[in-house]
């Protein structure tokens, strides 16, 4: 087309080009001004907004868990401490597929397969950036397995953390309780900020009751993180100022519990099912609190497997069951001194007057025989003698004269039917029946016969071992009453100051005549003298013991049947009970012993109390000291109760 039709016009082309260039130059400048305008918007107008975003990007709070407070016994021996453990942890936001990761860890045996659903829920309910412990304690073999496979598990790592350790293992577990991994339920009612970074929480016993004191408060520090969320030390050339709030360690607890005595108590109960509570009458301090069988709390702190837990849970002897605080039993004849006190206080009986015991009791206008444990009867007995020989007929009559309402009031004053208020949770109230209670519960009226058997600690009456020990302590202190307690002092973690806690005095039981205490205590002393029901177990003690035996019926007999221990299933045999305090004239320790289906209180429960008294009062801590030989004259006759 260019041949001849159009020729190049250089001047015109130059002009055209210059015009276009000028246009382009202006457009260029304008467009770059648009960019500058945009930059101005970002950096000046919206600077604050982006500065905040940038700060949020790089600074993260890392929780600093507090060290849990330690627990000491009365001798200053550590009974709950913290030791390093290797813990397997998962940080949710770094894990691409949580269920798959858990499944594969379970395949390697690093996580309990049964716990996978629970762990999944726990991870879902937690915070994305907070590490969740999967396994609290790894063995060397587990560590090796994980090390080999670590690259397959982004977001899962091994951390050294302090874990709880109970050096005495099973001993004292029913007082101490244990800590275990924080569960989904726990998350519902704890301050999550305080537990960020903590793996363990008190579940039961003291560990749970004093959780707030023991836990302390969590701290945190700001850490600089890069885009991968990894911690970095510095940013460019300048070190960055970051805040740190140090954690406050939990307070240490000092107990009245004496692990040497506790050891004797648990050893004496070994092989049985039962409980012992030993209390200092002048303070309410618990020197020993045992429930047997026991279990090892360290299993829980290190992460108990589903199978291990099932074994404990399904054990017919119920090792997880705290008999001392939660077991309610008919107290049997151990209530007789208290019935005597009620009789004296209400002035319904002359302690020196004798009653004739022919081996049975009948209510006026009735032919029903309430049998005495001694078929032939005790003959003429006064109050002291009735306590010493555990005469049922005497107390059937006394209860009948008092009537259930006065019995109820007197026994309630001594602590029956209500929790003792001991500083560890889970205690049961037992049952102190009354007319109103029966009407409300059974829609039935109270019969005189109901009252008669309450007189010997049977019927509806139920009490826990700690209630019995507390009642024994009140009698020992002649009416002064202190709330039972385990913790006697607290050491503040920051100041190191030990604050002794004053004993908690409760309303004292004041009798019209203080001499009444002597009558009852004399009767209890006679229990351990010749002719008493606990003479064998207390023979040769260099201190005087005031006591009362009890044998509580589990199995009801027909009116003319005879109880034959060998014919009754082991689980239906009588419970053996024993309450005592010593030295009788200046009591230092009050004890209640219960042996489930143990049989005879005097022959089974009393020797256990004797060993504890020997340990506490005489320092006989030697574990190998043989128990005093059971030297009861003859097989006890078949009884309802004594």
């Amino acid at each position: 087309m260019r041949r001849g039709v159009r020729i190049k016009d250089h001047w015109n082309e130059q002009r055209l080009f210059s015009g276009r260039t000028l246009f382009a130059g202006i457009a260029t400048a304008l467009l770059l001004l648009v960019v500058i305008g945009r930059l101005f918007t970002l950096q000046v107008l919206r600077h604050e907004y982006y500065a905040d975003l940038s700060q949020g990007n790089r600074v993260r709070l890392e929780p600093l868990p507090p060290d849990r407070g330690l627990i000491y016994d009365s001798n200053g021996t550590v009974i709950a401490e913290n030791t390093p453990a290797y813990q397997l942890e998962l940080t949710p936001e770094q894990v691409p597929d949580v269920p798959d990761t858990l499944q594969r860890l379970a395949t390697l045996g690093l996580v309990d397969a049964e716990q996978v659903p629970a762990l999944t829920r726990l991870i879902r309910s937690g915070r994305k950036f907070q590490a969740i412990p999967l396994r609290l304690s790894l063995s060397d073999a587990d560590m090796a397995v994980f090390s080999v496979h670590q690259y397959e598990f982004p977001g899962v790592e091994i951390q050294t953390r302090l874990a709880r350790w109970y050096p005495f293992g099973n001993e004292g577990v029913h007082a101490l309780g244990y800590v275990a991994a924080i569960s989904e339920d726990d998350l519902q009612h704890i301050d999550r900020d305080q537990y960020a970074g903590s793996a363990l929480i008190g579940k039961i016993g003291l560990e749970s009751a004093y959780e707030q004191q023991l836990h302390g408060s969590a701290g945190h520090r700001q850490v600089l993180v890069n885009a991968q969320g990894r911690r970095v030390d510095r940013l460019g050339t300048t070190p960055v100022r970051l805040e740190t709030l140090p954690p406050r360690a939990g307070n240490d607890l000092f107990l009245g519990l004496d692990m040497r005595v506790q050891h004797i108590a648990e050893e004496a109960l070994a092989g049985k099912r039962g409980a012992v509570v030993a209390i200092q009458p002048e303070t309410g301090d618990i020197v020993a609190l045992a429930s047997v069988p026991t279990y090892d709390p360290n299993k829980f702190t290190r992460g108990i497997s589903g199978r291990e837990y099932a074994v404990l849970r399904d054990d017919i002897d119920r090792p997880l069951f705290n008999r001392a605080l939660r077991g309610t039993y008919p107290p049997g004849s151990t209530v007789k001194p208290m019935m005597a006190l009620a009789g004296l206080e209400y002035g319904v009986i002359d302690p020196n007057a004798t009653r004739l015991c022919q081996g049975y009791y009948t209510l006026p206008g009735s032919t029903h025989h309430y049998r005495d444990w001694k078929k032939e009867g005790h003959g003429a007995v006064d109050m002291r003698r009735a306590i010493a020989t555990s005469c049922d007929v005497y107390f059937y009559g006394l209860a009948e004269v008092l009537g259930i309402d006065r019995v109820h009031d007197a026994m309630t004053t001594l602590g029956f039917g209500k929790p003792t208020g001991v500083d560890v949770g889970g205690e049961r109230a037992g049952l102190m029946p009354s007319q109103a209670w029966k009407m409300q519960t059974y829609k039935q009226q109270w019969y005189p016969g109901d009252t008669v058997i309450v007189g010997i600690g049977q019927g509806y009456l139920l009490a826990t071992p700690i209630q019995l020990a507390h009642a024994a302590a009140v009698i020992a202190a002649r009416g002064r009453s202190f709330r039972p307690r385990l913790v006697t002092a607290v050491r503040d973690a920051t100041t190191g100051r030990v604050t002794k806690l004053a004993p908690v005095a409760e309303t004292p039981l004041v009798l019209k005549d203080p001499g009444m205490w002597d009558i009852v205590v004399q009767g209890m002393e006679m229990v351990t003298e010749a002719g008493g029901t606990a003479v064998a177990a207390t023979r040769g003690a260099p201190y005087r013991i005031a006591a009362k035996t009890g044998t509580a019926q589990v199995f009801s007999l027909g009116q003319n049947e005879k109880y034959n221990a060998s014919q009754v299933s082991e689980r239906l045999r009588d419970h053996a009970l024993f309450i005592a305090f010593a030295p009788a004239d200046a009591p230092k320790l009050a004890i209640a012993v219960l042996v489930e289906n143990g049989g005879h209180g005097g022959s089974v429960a009393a020797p256990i109390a004797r060993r504890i008294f020997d340990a506490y009062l005489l320092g006989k801590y030697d574990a190998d000291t043989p128990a005093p030989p059971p030297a009861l004259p003859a097989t006890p006759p078949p009884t309802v109760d004594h």
Partner: protein
Amino acid sequence: MLFTDTQSQAGRTLTATGWLLRRLHLDGPLLAALGAVVAFGLFVLYSATGENLGQWLSQLERLALAMAALVALAQVPPAWLRRISPLLYGVGVVLLVAVAVHGSVGNGAQRWLDLKVVRFQPSEIMKLAVPMMCAWYLHERPLPPSLRDVAVLLALILVPSLLIAKQPDLGTALLVASAGLLVLFLAGMSTLVIVLGLAAVGAAVPVAWHFMHDYQRQRVLTFIDPSTDPLGAGYHSIQSQIAIGSGGIFGKGWMNGSQAQLEFLPERSTDFIFAVIGEELGLLGQVFLITLYMIVIGRALYMASEAQNTYARLVCGSFALTFFVYAFVNTGMVSGILPVVGVPLPLVSYGGTAMVTLLASFGVLMSLNRHRKLVGA
């Protein structure tokens, strides 16, 4: 004699420098502006690479190579440059086809041709070859170009551009196409045709969408609303805006940008280095760089308008405006007003062959401009 023996050392140095520049056919102001950009770039790059001296030195090495290319090309007589334009273009297209057939896959895309000695991207050649070819075609023809000429030129531009876009390298394809189209624009193509062309492009958008790779579509979608995918495709855009915005007027200080140094900002030393400047040196640092760019572009456009033949004018003008396209597209995408396309910040971003290509283009520009007295019109 203007200068005597008593004249200052500085005066003599200046005289000597002027003489050397003339001898080497170099343009002093343009070279100074380019030098300022490059020096500023090296300063920023040291921080953006996280004090990686190795990377910094390799950038310096690349810079030396690029400078050598600039000086060498400036020595080539303009007539030669014009004559080899079709050859350069032809070789470039052949190489692009070769890459398409069996190129090595680098960075997830087929861009590199391995010639045993050097691995290079033929698409980089096209950044120079396409505008030079277009200018060569128009050199003898009367301007403004006829419709037939426009059609031929569009074909010359589209063939290599599409080959590059297919690799896929959207950024380079865009730059190559715009370099060619800028020649058309400067040649005085009728405004009506331009408007109609833009309308046709608008109509072609749905068609283009159809041929796009998923990641390209994603980029477009994310550009429209980055918050829809804050951790995926929108991450780049969001983090770079946080970096710039948090820098404020004065910045957080050199090597103290948390977004950059803690790696929240992706590709901080390459495509997104402009955000590092914004974070560490603030609005002032960014405006300073943009001002330098304006000086470079302004000087280059002035030189283009001073050029004495059609070929020289068109090539110089196209190179000057292509440099602007680089700067505008990169700063626009980093500050969030343009979609994220792989265009580096000219003469500042780390790596790539863009540095060499850009300085080479300025070498050509200087040759075409500074030889005029010797060659004549």
